[in-house]
């Protein structure tokens, strides 16, 4: 078996295993009702139906990849591909961590009350979103371009500020991340 075949085989098998884990480990552990419930003469859709269906479709997708998607001319997955994916995921994870924790960390240093009472107060409510969001876009652009430029920084800032203008300023009752979860 050639390595090009193995790439899709591994991907397909991984997907099928993930689907099985969802269906037989995650859903039973996390959902109390079944697929279909009958409670005192009432037949209702249980909470497990939707995720079980989703797991079924994910598994079907994996099987299709294993059985049919094995082209002779498929390109190999290289270490370079894996490196790119790893750096991409690290940038996203670090940016979300900054988005989540920067505001609380700064507030804990400066304010006795901590961050929570300030989660709907400017400028505190923008700190994590602005730095984490702008940082994510800047880092991704810089990573793809292979260099850090002021242009990337400005694009990142413009995107984060744009989202704040669209989603925060017009609405009194909407909270930007992470403020709904702190």
């Amino acid at each position: 078996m050639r390595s090009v075949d193995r790439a899709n085989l591994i991907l397909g098998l991984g997907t099928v295993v993930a689907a099985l884990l969802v269906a037989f480990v995650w859903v039973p552990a996390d959902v109390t009702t079944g697929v279909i419930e009958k409670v005192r003469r009432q037949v209702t859709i249980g909470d497990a139906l939707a995720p079980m269906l989703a797991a079924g479709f994910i598994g079907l997708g994996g099987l299709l990849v294993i059985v049919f998607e094995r082209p002779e001319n498929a390109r190999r997955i290289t270490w370079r591909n894996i490196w790119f994916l790893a750096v991409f995921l690290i940038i996203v994870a670090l940016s979300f961590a900054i988005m989540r924790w920067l505001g609380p960390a700064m507030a804990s240093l400066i304010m006795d009350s901590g961050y929570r009472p300030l989660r709907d107060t400017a400028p505190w409510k923008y700190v994590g979103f602005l730095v984490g969001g702008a940082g994510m876009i800047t880092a991704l652009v810089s990573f793809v371009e292979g260099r850090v430029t002021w242009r990337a920084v400005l694009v990142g800032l413009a995107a984060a500020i744009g989202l704040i203008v669209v989603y925060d300023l017009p609405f009194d009752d909407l909270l930007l991340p992470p403020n709904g979860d702190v």
Partner: protein
Amino acid sequence: MKRIFKTAISTAAAVVLAGSAFASDWTPPGPIKLMIAFKAGGGADTQARLIAEDLEAKMGWKFIPEQVTGKGGMNLAMAIKDQPNDGSVIGMVVTETLGYNMKVANAGVTPSDFTAITTTAGFQMGVVSRSEKGWKTFDEMIAAARESPLRFGAMSPKLADLAYLLGKAQGVEFNIVNVKGGKGVMNGVNAGDLDLGFMAGIQRKGVAAGDLVNLASALSAPLVQTPDAPTFADLGVKFSADGYFLIVGPGGMPAEARDALAAAIGEVISTEGMKSNGMISKAFGGAAIIAGDDAQALVEGDFEAAGALLQAASE
């Protein structure tokens, strides 16, 4: 027990006034997240948002409303359970959430895991049909049900059980249809998809206009608007749909925060001219306030009593 709560309601104004005096020092630590267990735009959601609006105007507090719907309020209960209990997170459910629904859900929580802050309004829960059906009384509807099964809309499992028991007591079998929210029942009845159903106050205008008929009161007391309609007890059902809209918080909320919130809410919903007072008066027949320890006792009693209804409906 019921007498205790009725007494509590009748003395609510005094409690509220006293509460506002002793709890006025408390202020929320920042904005208050107000979880709402009802679909956006319905009567209950409107009530919750108007209370928040009134409190913002009167107390200067800031509210952040958030819809947490589903499972008869249990999704909200499970979401609020582990939130900070300093008064910065509260939710609006119905007493049924911490009573029957919590019992049925068997989710490993009891009312003691929550802080009942105050009720705001009672239900005017009627069994309602469209007047063009031609039934002027409950007995006329039952006569029709003997001819062919009627479709009976219910917006919660408890009400579905009550509909079943009503049919059983009357010797008929209803085709019980679960519908989302009282508005869903009213839409179904108006559209002819349902023959009758439970409505908790939303029917007021329709009844006043003569389009809808309150055939029975699903409460232990007669309906304010249609006092001649028989109650469930009159019809041979020993259970009722008595219940209230309830503001809750996570368990272990300090009494100071709980009482200050209860006092402030009680004051705005009882004060003429406040938006929430106007809405509650029109839709739910006026504020019904059971606060603090009395509210906690109410939901814990409902939780214990839910077993009897479940048993009866399972037979």
